[in-house]
């Protein structure tokens, strides 16, 4: 296995402007991204030169046009932050990518930092909008009108792992993990059969098992092959099926269990039949059943509930954490938490009304409907569905729950605040973040795997950072300490 597994997430946020009849999402997203209190005089480019989103993991490259913004647009659209994160406009949405992390709690704190950064941007943007108008931002994946936007997870894997193994062994996990990862949604979309409430935001939108596209005919397994790292060693698995989560515990379990399953796939540890007969249909069936008892047909002829499919993975994971010698201890806790949640899901999912987003939301909605004599068709119910994801700490319903002690926490306030400013210390994000802090005005361009400096004379100097586990504090602090200027840095590196 590739140790450690480098991970990260990208969140596209939903966006609207109150009292703006001609709301323009692209213009607003642009305003937002330029309203964060980062040095706005900073003029750096996102280096698209090395991007390859059309390369397919199955071994070919799509011959298509890939639009790259011109320099001026580039600078407006892309912000790279001193904590190593990327904050940018993706189509019509503001998007936040965490820096590269080695563990789930780091990913969690950077995601939460992202919410805070979006909120500060929102407040900054509101200051320049006409009176009466204000930006509203949602960390969710659906607009109830048939449009979905993504939350993507990234897991860096050993390239020697056959992609087919990932397709065969990861799909069943992804389809059934909705039972503890879904963010919940009122109603159904995209032609799916009506339900008053379902487990996930994204479940209705997946139409194929495997594919390159992320916007139409969405695939359960995305084949984008753009590692942003040494492509002889690494594959970046780009997972697009997940929901964005508000609950810290849900994110922890979502990403922690995914890492465990992928480690097992890398090590050839999963045996036995985990394949579903019809994953796309199963995805919807799982999401549409909040009792988590729907029978899913497997390829081997058996029928199992999503809880039972997860138990299969969990059983293997328990053996794996007990036997693997080089696995971090935190995975023992993850396996334990996973089992505890599965037990409660099997017994009665509503027991998880402090831990799992879809249950927390359902708990809120049903109590509200009961107390206020309302129902699923009431507009307030749909409004609560959306407002659960509102990132304003004083108005978002998740935050209301959290404030009243109704949400199980994994992080402290200090964790989150620190993550807004400082990069992780154990990946190349450290080098990127520190360069941004120290040499920002000499930086010409940035990408995940490179950073380029304009030293004022001579050509642009691009430093390649193909190895995500290098460029850590341990590797580069000494170099940074003895480099007062970017020119020093480049000289010291090339010496």
């Amino acid at each position, binding site marked *: 296995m590739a140790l450690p597994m480098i991970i990260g997430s990208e969140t*596209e946020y*939903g*966006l*609207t402007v109150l009292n703006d009849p001609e709301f323009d*999402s692209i213009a607003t997203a642009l305003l937002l991204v330029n309203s964060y209190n980062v040095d706005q005089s900073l003029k750096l480019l996102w280096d698209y030169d090395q991007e390859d989103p059309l390369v397919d993991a199955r071994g070919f490259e799509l011959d298509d046009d890939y639009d790259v913004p011109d320099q001026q647009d580039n600078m407006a659209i892309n912000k790279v932050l001193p904590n190593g994160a990327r904050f940018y406009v*993706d*189509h*019509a*949405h503001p998007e936040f990518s965490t820096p590269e992390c080695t563990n789930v709690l780091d990913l969690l704190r950077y995601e939460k930092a992202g919410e805070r950064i979006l909120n500060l941007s929102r407040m900054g943007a509101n200051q320049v909008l006409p009176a009466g108008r204000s930006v509203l931002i949602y960390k969710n*994946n659906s*607009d*109830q*009108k048939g*449009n*979905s*936007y*993504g939350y*993507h997870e990234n897991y860096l894997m050993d390239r020697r792992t056959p992609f087919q193994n990932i397709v065969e062994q990861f799909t069943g996990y992804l389809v059934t993990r909705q039972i503890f990862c879904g963010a919940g949604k009122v109603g159904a979309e995209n032609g799916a059969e009506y339900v*008053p*409430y379902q487990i996930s935001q994204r479940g209705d939108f997946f139409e194929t098992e495997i594919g390159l596209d*992320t*916007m139409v005919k969405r695939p359960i397994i995305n084949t984008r092959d753009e590692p942003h790292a040494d492509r002889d060693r690494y594959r970046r698995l780009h997972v*697009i099926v997940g929901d964005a989560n508000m609950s810290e515990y849900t994110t922890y379990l979502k990403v922690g269990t995914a890492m465990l399953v992928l480690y097992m796939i890398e090590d050839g540890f999963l045996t036995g039949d985990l394949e579903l007969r019809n994953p796309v249909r199963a995805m919807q*069936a799982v999401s549409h*059943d*909040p*009792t988590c*008892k*729907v*029978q899913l047909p497997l390829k081997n002829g058996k029928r199992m509930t999503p809880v039972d499919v997860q138990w299969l993975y969990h059983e293997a994971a328990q053996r794996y954490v007990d036997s693997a010698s080089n696995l971090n201890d935190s995975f023992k806790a993850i396996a334990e938490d996973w089992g505890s949640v599965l037990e409660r899901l099997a017994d*009665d*999912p*509503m*027991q998880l*009304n*402090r831990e799992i987003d879809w249950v927390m939301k*359902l708990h*809120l909605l*049903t*109590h*509200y*409907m*009961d*107390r*206020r004599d309302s129902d*699923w068709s009431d*507009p*307030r119910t*749909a*409004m*609560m569905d*959306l*407002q659960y994801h509102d990132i304003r700490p*004083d*108005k978002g*319903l998740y935050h*209301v729950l959290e404030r*009243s*002690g*109704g949400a199980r926490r994994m992080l402290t306030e200090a964790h989150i605040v620190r993550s807004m400013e400082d990069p992780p210390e154990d990946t190349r994000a450290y080098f990127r973040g520190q360069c941004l802090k120290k040499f920002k005005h000499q930086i010409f361009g940035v990408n995940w795997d490179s950073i380029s400096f304009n030293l004022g004379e001579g050509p642009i100097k691009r430093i390649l950072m193909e190895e995500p586990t290098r460029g850590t504090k341990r590797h580069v602090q000494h170099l940074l300490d003895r480099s007062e200027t970017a020119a020093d840095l480049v000289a010291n590196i090339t010496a």
Partner: protein
Amino acid sequence: MMIKRVNPVESTWTGIITCAEGGGQQQARRTSETQPEAKTTEAENLTETGEKLKDELDALIDEIDEVLEENAEEFVKNYVQRGGE
């Protein structure tokens, strides 16, 4: 607190709503998660906890009413997102 099912695949939604009322026992777990349980009789415990939780829930619902977007119908209708991955 079992959610009633009509058949193996569907669930009844009224079942979910009426179940929510009897949440006393489940929710008792909430408050005692980090504190040791006080030594009172079980009956006293449940009534007290039940009352307290009922009040907490009422307070929560009140707060939701305070912060919930007004003109919910129009707001939801106008919330459209295009161009998402």
